[in-house]
């Protein structure tokens, strides 16, 4: 078992619970030991960063410092956490003055950060560390040509493109194809779901999500695979509202990518919590 330090993020504790559970189970079955970072705190997210950048960086820095003492890569499942923890790392490395100030704040809490924690997204770990061979070997029930729209959203590959193309990522498409799924051509796969705008500017956000959902249906997808809890809830939670606003008839299942992986690996409700999903997942689960 290869060990990684796992950063679930706040969504994993409630709305994104099924993502957390399925991620842990899938990783374990692939020989990856996700050890939860003890007493982790909020990464700061886009929202705190909009209030005060230094304080937001300090929040991420505590996690980076705690992870550094464990010595393995810090793995996030949420694109927002992945982006924010990476941003704190980049900014502290580029700005000695900021690093000094955050260091003094960490010191006040009895912590220290040398700057060596590597931040990863679980998708990166699965595609690039576990790799195609081991993943193909783990398949028990082939996804039998299931047509999937692989949706990446924004903050996984932008701005830095740390492990995939910033505008046209492909790693999730490849991963799904190793399970026998058939990723559809989905040119909007890295366009934005609006994130937190669903709360403060719902009309603007619904339009973004409507385009993403309609494009997936138009491309012949039977379901959508997501890699971020906020994307997932924006894509699956507002379909009724969007149908009302736009006169559409959208009703497409939206999975966490780890749930689809788990289905192909022969896992069931206990390991994947498909009953948490708001969109119907039964027909697809029954086919696998």
């Amino acid at each position, binding site marked *: 078992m290869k060990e990684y330090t796992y950063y679930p993020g706040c969504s994993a*504790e409630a709305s994104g619970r099924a993502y957390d559970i399925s991620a842990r189970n899938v990783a374990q079955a692939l020989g990856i030991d996700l050890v939860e970072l003890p007493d982790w705190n909020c990464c700061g997210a886009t929202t*705190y960063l909009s209030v005060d950048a230094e304080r937001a960086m300090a929040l991420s820095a*505590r996690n980076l410092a705690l992870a550094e003492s464990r010595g393995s890569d810090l793995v996030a499942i949420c694109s927002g956490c992945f982006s924010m923890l990476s941003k704190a790392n980049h900014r502290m490395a580029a700005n000695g003055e900021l690093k000094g100030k955050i260091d003094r704040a960490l010191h006040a809490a009895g912590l220290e950060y040398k700057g060596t924690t590597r931040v990863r997204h679980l998708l990166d770990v699965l595609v690039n560390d576990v790799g195609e061979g081991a993943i193909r070997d783990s398949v028990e029930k082939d996804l039998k040509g299931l047509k999937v729209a692989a949706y990446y959203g924004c903050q996984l590959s932008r701005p830095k493109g740390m492990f995939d193309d910033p505008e046209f990522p492909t790693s999730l498409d490849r991963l799904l194809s190793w399970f026998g799924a058939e990723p559809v051509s989905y040119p909007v796969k890295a366009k*934005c779901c609006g994130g937190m*705008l669903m709360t403060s500017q719902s009309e603007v956000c619904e339009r*973004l999500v409507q385009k993403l959902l309609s494009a997936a249906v138009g491309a012949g997808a039977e379901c959508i695979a997501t890699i971020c809890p906020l994307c997932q809830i924006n894509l699956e939670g507002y379909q009724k509202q969007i149908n009302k606003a736009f006169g559409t008839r959208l009703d497409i299942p939206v999975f966490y990518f780890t749930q689809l992986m788990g289905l192909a690996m022969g896992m069931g409700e206990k390991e994947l919590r498909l009953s948490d999903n708001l969109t119907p997942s039964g027909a697809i689960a029954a086919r696998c």
Partner: protein
Amino acid sequence: MAKTEVSASDTEELNSLFLRELRLVPEWEKIKLCIQCGTCTASCPTSWAMDIKPREIMGLFRAGRLDKVLQSNAVWICASCYSCTVRCPSGVKVSDVMYALRAVGIKHGLLPKGEKYPALAKAFAKVVDKYGRNAESELLARYYLRSDPLGLGKQLPLGLRLLRRGRLALLPKGIRGREDIEKMMTELEREDRG
């Protein structure tokens, strides 16, 4: 209530607050290299809903009109998708400039009328300062009850569906590290004062 008149001393304070936030962005100086090509506006998924477009924001910044920028809805409709940032031919980190502008708006209190995101962001920071993690239910309750009671009605059906599936944690879960966070924030504040 949002301010509308901006005095000379306000302008000075705005500029210094903005510079403070902006300097935290690596290669922030590149904001001066904007060639007004409009790639940012064309790449933005929400520019259609903005009263002032991202290209104009860069122009207004150079014209010394931060007050006008901060009173636009654009700063708050940016969804942080970084499309502008990866495409800008001059290397301007437009999304990070937007973050800096939002922080200045909140600190100075110069906000567009009727915009709801500032209240959401402030409620988020309060919840995280208190518990060390986000508590989704408390955040949404704080935000909707105080700032958007009508929005609450719209969100309620989804809230109930999530609740039925156990996807809403009603009680916040604090972490031991809350004390660490308090000490860290106190230290940041102490340095700012001194």
